[in-house]
């Protein structure tokens, strides 16, 4: 299982998960393609923390995106510790933080569209930002997929 996470689970993590399962290829996607992705620019603050199923990869691994705001580390640590305490074997779960790929345009557009609810203003910005960050996001996903066996 792969879980891509960012602040709101709306843009970078959704794009990364879509690349992982093969919904997006090498070329930079058009705005129409980005908007057609499951959960792209749709999440509200009440959705933060809820796993969003994006698909399965070629090895049948489940791939999710999720918004963990700025608290990914304590939340993931607390979950890992819980499973360890409960002696539950959850198999291979890889958490991937996509925040490092987020640029200023994505932040500004994301806040405008999601937090302020000004879609008309924020959406074009975040779409353009995602296109600009696309190579970085794709590179991150390819790196993660190439790290066979590096699952935690």
């Amino acid at each position, binding site marked *: 299982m792969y879980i891509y996470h960012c602040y709101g689970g709306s843009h970078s993590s959704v794009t990364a998960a879509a690349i992982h399962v093969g919904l997006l290829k090498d070329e930079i996607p058009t705005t129409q393609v980005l908007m057609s992705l499951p959960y792209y620019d749709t999440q509200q603050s009440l959705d933060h923390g809820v796993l969003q199923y994006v698909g399965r990869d070629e090895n049948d691994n489940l791939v999710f995106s999720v918004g963990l705001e700025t608290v990914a580390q*304590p939340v993931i640590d607390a979950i890992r510790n819980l499973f360890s305490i409960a002696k539950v074997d959850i198999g291979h779960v890889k958490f991937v933080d996509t925040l490092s790929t987020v640029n200023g345009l994505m932040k500004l557009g994301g806040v405008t569209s999601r937090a302020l609810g000004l879609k008309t203003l924020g959406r074009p910005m975040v779409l353009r930002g995602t296109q600009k960050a696309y190579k970085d996001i794709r590179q991150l996903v390819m790196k993660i997929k190439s790290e066979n066996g590096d699952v935690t």
Partner: protein
Amino acid sequence: MIYYYHCYRGAHLSSVAAAIHLELLPQDPTMDDILNLEYFDKLQFEDMGTPVLAGYDEQENPVYFVGLGKGTKVFDRFADSIIGELGLDLEFQSIDCLCCLDVIIRTGGFLSNRTGFKSLGRRLAAWGVRRKIGEIRTMVLQAKGN
């Protein structure tokens, strides 16, 4: 059943809630009762995400407290979600203690982490917790299903 009491730093509200769960505090505790709790005002920011076992209750359920920073609400949704997606049969209850937070506990917590104000902050947090003890006890009783 695994009980996870959580708050911002795991230093005050959640550690006291765990103590009430384990019946380590009298019905009407004094400030000293609270200040003398083993884990009161102990956890720090770097401990966030690491649960501390406070003990086992009368039904041998493990009772933990943990600091989650600003992630208490996100954690509850994430825990439900991942347990559901993985199809785990896990008896687990997560209790967000921030519902009992007020400005006195918040200020005490802030000061107890600042050099020179530690003692004042501890006492202020203990005073705030004592004022809220009824609410905390109700929350714990609800969690235990009593």
